[in-house]
């Protein structure tokens, strides 16, 4: 394996789902990379292709409905995982790369004891005996902060609370010390106090084992906590990406502006109405020719409807795809990011 700095590099990823209505282009040319030991957040609203991107990296896009298009590249340690054979896939999934899903209740097998669901992983990848795996499963449960792990390993998922189930999912994901962890909205189904605890666990484990993390979320509060880099996705494309500070303090894309303005703030004293983004994302059965955000964008111009903008580079890896940054476009001031407006 190469000693490249980048553990993961995704180039021009395109994923489609074939449905009765036609081909849904869920991901339309997404490129990003992730450095070893770092965390990247992919943010965007529901249906923007975040989860499909995550599943592609995990190798969970299944035919005949799902299809990763020709020309897409997912380089793990410099090797394209899309060309893996069956055996390589089996050691990659779970061993090199692990995933934590959003809904822990649905993601755990209801008829299998929790301990066994962790043990499976250990037996498959670390070739442990049953007894060793059981001890290790108990250790993992203790590590993610589950009290009385000796008793808990013998229980079923329905006997756990929501937060505890998500801890089990994390225990399963971390069981084989993966190099890459994908968290697909791990805290969306949890209440706020538990969200914080779960994020703390993920961050601690990440620091301890040096795992690289892709955090998929629609919650910008989660991002600030955990990630160094952010990619903002909209309608199956990345519209802006860069370092966390750059995205939060000097965002360049109108969609990112709107996204940040729609986060509730505690530091605003006036009675203000939370800003929302009107409209809905475009239909991915027939994606627009131009910028996908044009129908909802306050600054939309003629060119936006006709042609997709290229990335403009702002330095330090910060890029945004918007016609406003073209030299011929009118200068637009960044709006007040604190959001809210008086009624």
């Amino acid at each position, binding site marked *: 394996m190469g000693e490249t700095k980048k553990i993961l590099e995704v180039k021009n990823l395109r994923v489609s789902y074939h449905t009765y209505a036609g081909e849904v282009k869920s991901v339309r040319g997404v490129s990003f990379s992730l450095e070893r030991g770092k965390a990247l957040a992919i943010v965007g609203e529901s249906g923007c292709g975040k989860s499909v991107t995550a599943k592609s990296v995990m190798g969970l896009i299944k035919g005949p409905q799902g299809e990763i298009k020709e020309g897409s590249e997912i380089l793990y340690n410099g090797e394209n995982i899309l060309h893996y054979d069956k055996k390589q896939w089996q050691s990659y999934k779970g061993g090199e790369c692990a995933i934590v899903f959003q809904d822990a209740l649905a993601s755990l097998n209801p*008829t299998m004891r929790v301990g066994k669901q962790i043990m499976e992983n250990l037996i498959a990848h670390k070739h442990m005996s049953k007894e060793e795996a059981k001890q290790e499963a108990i250790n993992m449960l203790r590590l993610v902060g589950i009290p009385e792990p000796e008793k808990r390993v013998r229980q*079923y998922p329905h006997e756990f609370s929501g937060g505890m189930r998500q801890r089990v*999912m994390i225990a399963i994901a971390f069981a084989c010390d993966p190099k890459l962890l994908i968290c697909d909205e791990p805290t969306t189904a949890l209440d706020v106090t538990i969200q914080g605890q779960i994020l703390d666990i993920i961050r601690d484990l990440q620091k301890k084992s040096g795992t690289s993390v892709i955090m998929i979320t629609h919650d910008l509060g989660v991002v600030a906590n955990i990630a160094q880099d952010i990619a903002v996705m909209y309608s199956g494309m990345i519209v802006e990406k860069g370092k966390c500070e750059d995205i939060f303090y000097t965002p360049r894309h109108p969609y990112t502006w709107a996204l940040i303005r729609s986060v509730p703030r505690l530091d605003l004293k006036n009675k203000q109405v939370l800003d929302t983004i009107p409209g809905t994302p475009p239909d991915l059965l027939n994606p627009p020719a131009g910028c996908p955000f044009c129908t909802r964008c306050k600054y939309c111009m003629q060119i936006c409807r006709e042609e997709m903008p290229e990335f403009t580079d702002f330095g330090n890896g910060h890029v945004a795809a918007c016609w406003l940054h073209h030299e011929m476009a009118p200068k637009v001031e960044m709006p007040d990011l604190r959001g809210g407006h008086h009624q």
Partner: protein
Amino acid sequence: MGRYIVRRFLEMLLTLFLIATATFFLLEAVPGDPLSQRADKLPVQSREVMYKRYGLDKPVMERYLITMKNMAKGDFGESFVYAGQTVGGLIHDRLPVSARLGIQQMLLGVTVGLLLGILAAIKRGTIADYTVVAFSVLLISIPHLIFGLMLQKIFAGNLRWFPTIGWPSGDELWFGGWKYTVLPTLTGCFSYIATYARLLKTSMLDVVNQDYVLTAESKGLSRGRIIRKHILRNSFIPVMTQLPMSVAMCITGSFFIESIFAIPGIGQYYVTAVNNQDLSIVLGETVLLALLYIVVLFITDLLYVVVDPRISMPGRKK
């Protein structure tokens, strides 16, 4: 747990009482009586003796009370049509025949059905899948009567591989005489194959799309392990509901198959008894079948607890 069983037992008694009462009055509501056909041509005196012997001279409500009282003691009385034939004797002589046939059909049918169901689900969207589905629809649409006669004509009539009719008896009642059982078993097993193949396939396709299967795949487990440990077990829950009902049904015999192959089973006798208005036999068999179903349903409820840990026994402490 104890209280639950007692409650279920009392419910069972009530159900049996209601079924017996309904059966009694429904049969009474049919015009004529079991003896009229034979007795009409006899002199009045002989007729009266005959009616007296079977108690048919008494008013309906009185006979109802007598019947229920005897039934509570386990005595269903003698057949109105065949002198000396009782429900107990019938069960002793004929139930084993029907049971063997039913069990053979079920073992073969359910096994093949489940295997085909798994095949269709795993190979979804391929020729194998479509073949299984088409085959199931075809088999479930052909009545036993037609299918049985067809098999009889081809394999017994034309090819002479198996005897046309008959059934092993005596020492071979439960084991042996296989060549007689092949055609009747085949005739009946196809409906099981069709039912279980479709049931398991539907259930598996539902489970395949569950998130926990995705989790299992993300662990890098082998395909075989995912199917066995994660998909199959969860797919079996609906099968678990159907299976005990099939067991109850298979023991009670099939009128058509037993008629076509001249098998001395209980299913054929039951239908004949209804035609003859043979009150005591019909009543006895109905109550016994009902009992069988209730017991089987109770076992199903217990089995759920075994298969699905999310269901716990009422009254059991955590």
